[in-house]
């Protein structure tokens, strides 16, 4: 198990360096000059332009800039935002809990709904339930997030008035930041009704962000289950007279879960990408919206640092998933 763990870590390090190189070069490949964007229509004269570039450290050769960036990372310094002048690390960790909270709720919804939906579709293969689940999941998968989010807002928030339109909590509450997780902070605060308001605000964005992973999980669970249900040991279990629910939960599901867990791990990356749109529609103050703003403003340190940290999260989740495989399926652990 330990050598398996080490091998996995060994893959992570080059991936991490690749990410630093990619983010550093990609943001610089996009045309656009942070000084010009800052100055807008007024513009700045060439001398001031050069001075500002020098102050931002952007006048140095690219290799030197990359080296400074890399050495900064190893000292725990991801630089300072060119726009807000705040350390990137501080900005990230101020906003990350909001994304984590939303992402966690979304993945919980996706798993709690997607997994049973996939199982039901597999068990009732070829029946109306199967076609309904598969049809709905295909629709969910192909739904543009932006349109879907606005549709839900118009229906549930504006039309029916059941849910708030956007934000993490009603503007009437001012909850002190203790953990950064609104649900916990609202629970800890003295403000009556804050927790309910925070929960209320989480409903629509979580559903929107969960839609694509839910569809993928449902489809993956269905196909994995179908395969497992055909296996001899499942047939034997059924022949022995075990009740179907027991066969599914005890015998089939555990084996069917392996590809599903891989997909759940991969969906973390999809969630991060979806968070950019979901956070923009629902004015959710997380890192998705922050990254998008930083790209628009050509705020190089924020984009580099933000993407690097998001990549670290995705790498870590996938590493955990890889290790978790071993727990779920001993064959993997021993084969490697």
């Amino acid at each position, binding site marked *: 198990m330990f050598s398996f763990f080490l091998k996995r870590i060994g893959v992570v390090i080059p991936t991490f360096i690749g990410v630093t190189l990619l983010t550093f070069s990609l943001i610089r490949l996009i045309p656009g000059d*942070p000084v010009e964007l800052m100055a807008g229509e007024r513009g*700045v004269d060439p001398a001031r332009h050069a001075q500002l570039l020098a*102050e931002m450290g952007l006048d140095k050769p690219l290799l030197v800039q990359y080296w400074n960036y890399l050495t900064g990372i190893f000292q725990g310094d991801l630089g300072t935002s060119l726009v807000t002048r705040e350390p990137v690390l501080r900005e990230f960790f101020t906003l990350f809990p909001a994304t984590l909270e939303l992402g966690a709720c979304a993945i919980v919804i996706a798993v709690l709904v997607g997994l049973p939906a996939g199982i039901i579709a597999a068990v009732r293969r070829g029946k109306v339930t199967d076609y309904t689940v598969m049809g709905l999941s295909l629709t969910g998968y192909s739904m543009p997030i932006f349109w879907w989010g606005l549709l839900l807002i118009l229906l549930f928030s504006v039309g029916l008035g059941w849910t708030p339109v*956007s934000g993490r909590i*009603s*503007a009437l509450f001012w909850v002190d930041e203790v953990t950064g997780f609104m649900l916990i902070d609202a629970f800890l605060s003295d403000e009556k009704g804050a927790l309910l308001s925070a929960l209320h605000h989480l409903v629509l964005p979580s559903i929107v962000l969960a839609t694509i992973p839910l569809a993928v999980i449902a489809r993956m669970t269905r196909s994995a289950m179908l395969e497992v249900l055909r296996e001899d040991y499942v047939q034997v279990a059924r022949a022995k007279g075990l009740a179907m629910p027991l066969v599914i939960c005890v015998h089939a599901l555990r084996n069917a879960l392996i590809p599903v867990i891989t997909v759940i791990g991969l969906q973390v990356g999809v969630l991060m990408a979806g968070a950019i749109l979901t956070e923009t529609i629902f*004015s959710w*103050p997380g890192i998705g919206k*922050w990254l998008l703003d930083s790209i628009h403003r050509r705020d190089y340190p924020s984009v580099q640092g933000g993407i690097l940290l998001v990549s670290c999260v995705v790498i870590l989740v996938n590493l955990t998933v890889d290790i978790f495989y071993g727990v779920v399926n001993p064959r993997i652990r021993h084969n490697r």
Partner: protein
Amino acid sequence: MKKMLTRLLLVLVMLSIAGFAQAKTLVYCSEGSPEGFNPIFYTAGTTFDATAKNIFEGLTHFIRGTTEIEPGMAESWDVSADGKVYTFKLRKGVKFHSAKHFTPSRDMNADDVIFTFERQWKKDHPFHKVSGGSYEYFEGMSMPDLLSSIEKVDDYTVKFVLNRPEAPMLANLAMDFAVIASAEYADAMMKAGTPEKIDQWPIGTGPFVFEGYKKDAQIRYTANKDYWKGKAPIDKLVFAITPDASVRYAKLKAGECQVMPYPNPADLAAMKADANINLMEKEGLNVGYLAYNTLMKPFDDVRVRKALNHAINKAAIIDTVFQGAGKPAKNPIPPTIWSYNNATVDDAFDLETAKKLLADAGYPNGFGMKIWAMPVQRPYNPNARRMAEVIQADWAKIGVKAEIVSYEWGEYLKRSKDKDRDGAILLGWTGDNGDPDNFLAVLLGCDGVGGSNRAQWCYQPFEDLIQKAKVVADPKERTKLYEQAQLVFKEQAPWATIAHSVVFEPLSKNVVNYKIDPLGGHIFYGVDLK
């Protein structure tokens, strides 16, 4: 039991909301997050709304809803006969806000004024480098070249000595970069070893006191009880940061906010029809233009520029691009600015005249050129690509084959300044201070060639007029000079003036006394809730 608990919870929620609602709270769905909390570092309107417009004040003010100047932190002022010395008498009894980490021990005085300007101006000032030390507006308004000295005459008198007369000086001092900061606060934070705190937690003298910021989510203020003009009618002000215009509209409809900026043009008809929404509108302080590069052939010939201007159908642009929310522009300054010359005769849409002028200039069969279309939406141009297409189609009728080009916004701005830039460029301007100089000198003055003067147009008769207007103190004489300058501009046609847009601001019906700021800000002092 469960039912009882739920009911109890609901009652508690209602009570808490009701308790809060007793304090009048206005929620403004702002369009973005402020870059920071000291306006001296930034140039974005979003940042100014969150800071300068509501927390701070300058020596002079713009009267709310207008571009006229009124006394602010300065109660009165004298200008010397040569226009180079401004002596300000400061208002007494003006209190700075308090915060958990700072309680002011004195009223605003001359030390604060000197601190405010010297921090931005003098490189050896102890606060000059704090928080990055980049003062784009102060630099952009040429303040370092303009200022000779700032002297404290006594605690409530400050003298600004200039290197040259500058008629727009009082308007400049009402701008967001010139708001007065507390020198006492700066000293206290320096002693505490956290000088950058003054840029993170704003302490001003304005009508609203900063209470806190949750990044990208909310900014909260309370009304300043000690405000020298009297407490604001509302008790609390909340900026709920909502970047998407459709979502802002949904929030307004759901009653989650009462004021929203920058509505989608497509939503305007529905807003007008909504009985719960008051859609306010005002002509914007802006101009959208098409600048020819007058240094390059064939645009160095005024006949060519005039011909192209005659071949643009502005009425079609107002219909298709502005969807009616704009007015054709004939001058380079909007009609809301004093000295606007209504006598200017616009180049009428007349293809025959255009063809004749082209033939006179030696291009009877037209020529090929480029039109630069901005990649972004701006108040003065909601859809540059569409506008370029309309112009392209119009020009094709006189034999001018225009190719539309565009670049990423930063790149676009950079390349637009090149003296050898090819073709004509779509761009525009929103005024900073309501002074004609802020349009005519910045956009068309000789100093701006290779920079903000995208037509690269340096025409001495025009330059003489605007330079003279800059140093003349008498407003009537300045008006005459600017009126003349507009006629010269029209005759020489370095631009095709396209349109001035209309600014819309939807509010809930229960908001009273809100005024649209012609300078594009969002000011909440004086606003009340029914």
